[in-house]
């Protein structure tokens, strides 16, 4: 086993550890904001480490550049969707609070 194989294995292992931690947090954390926090760690660091492993394993600069682009767009998309989800969750919370304090206690 060469040094390159070892590096790929180590990066993959570290990436998967972040994915596992992110999934665990997604399942166990109490509210939307902290769940998003867990998921974005998996998306940013987990995917970054796995992509780095794949780029080294690919063995050419062209492959590495393509994987880097895939990673970049995944990160931008994940950042956008988590912003949207967080905003939506916050709007829903505000609406529930309004419903609780409304005299008739009505929904929506």
């Amino acid at each position: 086993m060469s040094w390159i194989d070892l590096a790929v294995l180590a990066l993959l292992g570290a990436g998967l550890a972040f994915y596992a931690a992110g999934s665990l947090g997604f399942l166990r954390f109490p509210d939307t904001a902290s769940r998003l926090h867990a998921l974005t760690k998996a998306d940013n660091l987990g995917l970054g480490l796995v992509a780095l492993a794949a780029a080294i394993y690919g063995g050419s600069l062209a492959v590495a550049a393509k994987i880097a682009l895939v990673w970049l767009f995944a990160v931008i998309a994940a950042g956008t969707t988590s912003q949207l989800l967080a905003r939506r969750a916050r709007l829903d919370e505000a609406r529930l609070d309004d419903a609780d304090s409304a005299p008739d206690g009505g929904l929506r």
Partner: protein
Amino acid sequence: MTFAFDLILCLMILGTAAIALFVRDALAAIAFFIAFGNLMGLAWLGLDAVNVALAEIAIGAGVTGVLLILARARLLALGDAATSTGSPLLLRLGALAACAGFVVLLAAAVLSIPPESGLDRVVAPLMPGLGIENRVTGVLLAFRAYDTLLESFVLLGALVAVWSLAPAGAWPGRPADPGMADAPMRRVAGTFGQLLLPVALVMAAYLVWAGSDLPGGAFQAGTVLAGGLLVAGMGGTIGLPSSDQPLLRAALVLGPVVFLAIGLAGVAAGGLLVYPAGLAKALIVTIEYTLFLSIGVTLALLVAGPPMPGASDPDPEGKG
């Protein structure tokens, strides 16, 4: 190692399919259906069918998933609970028997094909005459071109069907604005849309060009274009066009009409959809580029839905 991967993948495909079928909540079913489509894409990739994998993930999981989510939202808005209710036992047993019988027939048919008699052996010697390398494109655009020609018209027909659902008085207006109502969300989505739309255009143009020799093609590229248009629409970067705009109508029919015209012109070269020798690649690339534009715009408008009353604010970009 590869066997273990295949086994786990198969179990995950069957598991996601079972959950998508049996879960009561429609949103959960759709989420598992999208996961199922992505895993199926991986399976096709494992079988070296990259073209099918691209189509499965882009259209099977992506566009279909968005359509299902929108259909659920529409059902909820109409007062339907969008959960599955129990059906009579006899009906379920009947469906089980019919599906099992179909699976047995299909398996028998597939297993009766000897492994060495694949289409590849027939197609490979014919490819040099076309001047392209991707055998799937060869089959779709040359050897079985009428299938693809008919498909392109079916897609157009689907849009006509969706448009025919427009409420009275809304024709020929715009589809409901897909933009997000909340201003901060619209800004976030808008920034992403401004970045994504040009990249999607470049990516899609590359996918069509690569489709001659590598995996890719008009349908995959059209889906990428539709995705870019829809994300840009959600952020308000582009407005959706009114359904009677001449430019829009031209973009919708361009691909099928160019395909049909080139196919009819083939009569002069020996028959319907026959390409003259030496011109095959140029004609195939022409058809693919026009088809890609039409497929992209059609898919985006299919997701956008029929024209709706009151959705007639001025269109900032002219065309969707």
